């Protein structure tokens, strides 16, 4: 019983983190058809900016409460600057190129971002645990969980809901859905695709940075954290269906719960649980759970 509860709560916490780390990736893929490896770089940038800013702020000895404001601001700053630089500076010259080539492009960008992060922040780790501690813990059936974990779950739900609302209930969002659905029609309808691309990419980068920024207080921010989330995020959005926001959410939940189950019930398999799940899902649903519909060919 306790194990079941633990699996549920742990799975939810892990899923929230996965969703926040991968939703930007699926959005960028859906709109731009770019499988963005540099997403890992944005995640790392967000984490570093947030950890660094929190570190600076807490040295002043002021109230911890304000750090919850610093986190999103750090994500916004990191995502805005790096997203704009990468999109305006590099990617826009490459639109229309082969999808596979774009993977290589973003990989190259990722390599550059990795070393840029190292140049800015060095190789020492950054710890900024204050926001994760300040809210204390609550007991779930005798198991203590940090309130911060539930805060992350809340933010994940909020981000998911906000994206859903923005896509389905605003004019811009609906147009964006048209772009996702069919790009040829969208340019025929006179949609400014270039602007959409820039905005989408920056939002995607900011979401990636937000994933990192929110995680920073729970971990030790070190070089290499960006590389770790790439494959995980890929797996999540492939399971859910590339380009689908709901898919990313479902994919994150599936991976989150199954990983938690493995940890509690059969720890040795945790190492490749995510790949087992991905292989299993793809065997049954070859295009992921919420595959974008292919437009009719013949």
């Amino acid at each position, binding site marked *: 019983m306790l194990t079941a509860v633990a699996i549920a709560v742990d799975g939810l916490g892990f899923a929230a983190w996965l969703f926040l780390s991968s939703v930007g990736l699926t959005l960028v893929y859906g709109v731009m058809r770019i499988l963005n490896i540099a997403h890992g770089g944005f995640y790392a940038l967000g984490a570093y900016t947030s950890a660094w800013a929190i570190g600076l702020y807490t040295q002043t000895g002021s109230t911890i409460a304000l750090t919850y404001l610093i986190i999103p601001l750090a994500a916004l700053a990191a995502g805005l600057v790096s997203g704009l630089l990468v999109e305006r500076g590099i990617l826009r010259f490459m639109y229309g190129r082969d999808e596979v080539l774009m993977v290589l492009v973003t990989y190259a960008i990722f390599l550059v971002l990795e070393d840029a992060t190292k140049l800015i922040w060095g190789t020492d780790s950054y710890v900024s645990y204050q926001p994760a501690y300040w809210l204390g813990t609550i007991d779930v059936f005798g198991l203590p969980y940090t309130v911060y974990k539930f805060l992350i779950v809340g933010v994940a739900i909020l981000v998911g809901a906000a994206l859903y609302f923005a896509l389905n209930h605003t004019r811009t969002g609906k147009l964006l859905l048209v772009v996702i659905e069919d790009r040829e*029609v969208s340019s025929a309808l006179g949609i400014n695709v270039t602007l959409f691309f820039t905005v989408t990419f920056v939002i995607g980068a900011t979401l990636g940075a937000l994933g990192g920024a929110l995680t920073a207080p729970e971990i030790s921010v070190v070089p290499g954290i960006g590389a770790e989330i790439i494959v995980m995020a890929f797996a999540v959005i492939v399971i859910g269906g590339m380009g689908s926001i709901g898919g990313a959410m479902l994919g994150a939940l599936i991976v989150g719960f199954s990983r938690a189950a493995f940890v509690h019930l059969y720890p040795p398999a945790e190492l490749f649980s995510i790949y087992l799940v991905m292989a299993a899902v793809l065997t049954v649903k070859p295009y992921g759970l919420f595959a974008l519909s292919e*437009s*009719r*060919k*013949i």
Partner: protein
Amino acid sequence: MTPILETRNLERTFGAVVAARDINIRIGAGEILGVIGSNGAGKTTFVNMVTGYLPPSAGEILYRGSSITGKPTREIMRLGICRSFQIPQLFPEMDVLDNMLIALTIASRVKPALLTPAIDAGREEEALSLLARFGIERYAHQEIATLPQGVRKLVDIAMATVSDPDLLFLDEPTSGVSADEKMDFMKTLINALKANDTAVLFIEHDMEIIEAFSPRCVAFYEGTILADGPTREVLENRKVREFVIGSEFHRKTDKQAAPAAGNGAA
């Protein structure tokens, strides 16, 4: 005369939507047959079913007397059936000659041999003569992506004939061809195919072309066959005039919207 193709009570549903129902058609060897019907009437669904792209939900397809129901496309193609597409299905990043060369290589099922390459000068000649038959040899070295739609249609059809089929389905061969070229286009086409004694079923929206090139005509409406017989009789059929030709006329005046609307159903 036994028909080369016969379908019995062919039916296809997508969930609750019935795309085709009770399709019974017989095609004789070497026969030329036009199919009319508004978009979404089930014409392409019918072709898709016969060529194995869509398995029928019910019914039976007989080719030369034996069932080909549910067989995969490639096996049906090997029996001597082929088709062209409403939207040409080509290899867009290659030039026309390479398209034909690859199609010939695949369709002729060359045995793999490590010592000789699959494509040689002889095959190139064959490809060029096929292109010549459709009058498009001068485009041989142009990349598909740079060609006008009409030429792409012809390459698409030429590619469908590389295996020298006995039965050929042409899905709207003249769509994308300008109105004043349509007649000449079809003439080239039908002559090229007649010379090989190929049975042809073509889907067409232009009644003049139907009258000029097909002695027999089948009219589809909402997934069923409304009429089947000599072209003149079918075209004068009251129901056909009301449901098919009427909407055809409507379609012509509203060309922009129609294809988009039709894309939804198969």
